[in-house]
């Protein structure tokens, strides 16, 4: 679980070279989707050796109505010290995929296939008692709503020391010292007093700080932050994001940030992965995805951000609703809502699932769209609306 061996790095280079050469071939009729995506997974847009590698991950829930495919063929990777933002609407599979990374899904009701590797070690299929050792230690999670995510009946100090003592055999006093240190580190004033207070005695922002202190108490290599600022005031949001940024610099951990707020993405992310209906539809560095998006769904997300300068205009939502995961549309999952599908010749959008391909024929920025002239359409039609 320590730093990945140098071979891993070499491997990913080889694979990325292979990926590039195949990219041209794929333009005609590429290899199967699964193979392509497996290759994509180990390439990080930064080219660095990743700590977390997710490859061809699928999460399915068998229900009475049929099999719900919450996540399909998802591949991504995050190196230490880097932040990946996973963006998408509710139900796009962004939380479900990270729950799988934590091994927090209900084992009896979830089917997980594919590969999730932490520092080279496979965790898909690990038994519960092995996963328990990883949870909270190598991987920690910061949850969305600190009000409901902290136990209301235990003091904040109690909850943090408990998290530390699960993974460290130390006395209560040592754990308390560590907890006080963490409370101080996340900027909670007067840690000594706060230690013995209950969550309901904390403000929203302070509670999320406590949550972060609890998550980071074991110095995890990977932090999954599931909409960490959604339940907070706008002013407090910025503070929490700053805190996460600073802590990442200090601890050097990898962060997976799940959000639907593109403002948060712009502030935090190094890489961005856009999810729609359980699939990755665009993946690349934050710069690429935010400045040169190449997928109509990403355009729609960007266009739906309210701006102060356009305060008098109506918001431009993406029309329609996300599809039911029980019954995905044929072809591109986004096609029923896509305003650009008429520009694709024939019926490809409604019959053929687009592959996740490099947007400029090669490189790490990939998108899943049949449109040929994505760059031109974006520059001519979408970009002017965004400014």
């Amino acid at each position, binding site marked *: 679980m320590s730093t990945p061996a140098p071979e891993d790095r070499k491997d990913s280079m080889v694979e990325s070279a292979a990926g590039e050469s195949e990219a041209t071939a794929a333009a005609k009729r590429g290899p199967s989707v699964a193979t392509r995506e497996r290759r994509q997974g180990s390439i990080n847009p930064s080219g660095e050796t990743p700590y977390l590698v997710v490859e061809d991950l699928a999460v399915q829930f068998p229900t009475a109505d049929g099999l719900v495919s919450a996540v399909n063929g998802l591949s991504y990777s995050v190196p230490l010290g880097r932040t990946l933002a996973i963006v998408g609407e509710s139900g796009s599979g962004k939380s479900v995929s990270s729950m799988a990374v*934590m091994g*927090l899904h209900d084992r009896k009701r979830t089917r997980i296939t594919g590969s999730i590797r932490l520092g080279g070690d496979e965790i898909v299929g690990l038994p519960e008692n092995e996963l*328990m050792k*990883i949870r909270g230690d190598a991987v920690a999670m910061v949850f969305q709503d600190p009000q409901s995510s902290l*136990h209301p009946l*235990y003091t904040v100090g109690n909850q943090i020391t*408990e998290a530390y003592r*699960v993974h460290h055999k130390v006395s209560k006093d040592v754990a308390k010292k560590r907890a006080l240190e963490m409370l101080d580190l996340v900027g909670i004033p007067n840690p000594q007093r706060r230690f013995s207070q209950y969550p309901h005695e904390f403000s929203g922002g302070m509670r999320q700080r406590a949550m972060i202190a*609890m998550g980071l108490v074991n110095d995890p290599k990977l932090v999954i932050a599931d909409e960490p600022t959604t339940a907070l005031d706008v002013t407090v949001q910025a503070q929490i994001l700053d805190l996460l940024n600073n802590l990442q610099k200090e601890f050097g951990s990898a962060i997976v940030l799940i959000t639907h707020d593109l403002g948060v993405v712009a502030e935090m992310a190094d890489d961005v992965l856009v999810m729609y209906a359980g699939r990755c539809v665009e993946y690349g560095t934050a710069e690429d995805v935010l400045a040169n998006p190449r997928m109509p769904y990403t355009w729609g997300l960007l266009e739906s951000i309210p701006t102060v300068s356009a305060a008098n205009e109506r918001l431009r939502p993406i029309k329609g609703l996300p599809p039911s995961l029980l019954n995905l549309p044929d072809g591109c999952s986004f096609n029923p809502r896509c305003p650009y599908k008429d520009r694709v010749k024939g019926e490809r959008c409604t019959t053929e699932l687009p592959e996740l391909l490099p947007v400029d024929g090669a490189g790490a920025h990939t998108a899943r769209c049949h449109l040929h002239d994505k760059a031109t359409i974006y520059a001519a039609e979408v970009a002017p609306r965004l400014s």
Partner: protein
Amino acid sequence: MLYFVARRMVSALSVVLVTLIATFALFFVAPTDPAGAICGERNCTQQRYNEIKANLHLDRPKVQQFAEYTAGIFTGRDFTTSGVTQHCAAPCLGFSFKNDRPVTEMLKSRLPVTVSLVAGYAVLVLTIGVFVGSMAAKRRGTLGDRGLMTSTLVVSSVPYYIVALMVALYLTILYPILPRGEWHPPSENIGKWFAGLLTPWLVLGIYSCTSYARYSRGSMVETLSEDYIRTARAKGLSDRVVTYKHALRSGLIPVITIFGLDVATSLGGAIFTEKIFGLPGLGVLVLDSLNSYDLPVIMGTVLVASVILVAMNFLVDISYSLIDPRVRLT
């Protein structure tokens, strides 16, 4: 906290006062005939009837009777019948002429039986009942869960007195696997006390465990889906710690409410258990008094039961605040 206790005391006292008035009205103002009841049916001459009435002050205005009764609770009072004066020491809840004893004394001799019975019952439902419920909740939807819940449903759909009678008949008399129910004061012989109560405890406890298993399962299923349970699991805590430390503490809160009322009701007399297992508790006392129309005893028991109920509610509120720091006792 102090303010809370004081406030609750006031409301508790008013509840007891209302009960006092209501029971008094029920037995002495309603068209009942206490003197006739004491006098009996056979040798009751008009003269004797009037004498009893005068001795018991039943010929005085109702309000005065009530005042005397209430004053007796605090100071004690004397009863004179047929020239013999009986002293009834405070707290005097009346005098049973049928038994020729003060009601308080009778209750005092019966209360330990019922308290012993209910204490064992409380231990069983809070341990086995809650544990079975939590286990079922943890394994929700599995065969084990369904099996447990079906069996609790089956057990609790047979009337309690039938279960108790069957156990008493088959397991203590025909095939004496379990000791027979008997009452021995614990001060005399603690072993005999335990043996005599074992069967009633098991029958009452296990029968009630079925409903407690259902309450706690429901409450735990809800708690286990809380966000903070997910957080606890994300910390790397084992399933056992998550269920029995994090979830159970919250899951217990609704169970305690039911438990408090349940214990209070049983303390007022677990009639079936006492009768079937031959335990001389409050329930049997009430039953006998009803049969013999011994009004002062019935009234005294009702009053004591209401005080117990109010006290248990008070204890439940206190235990809320101990479990949940968000509950401020004000």
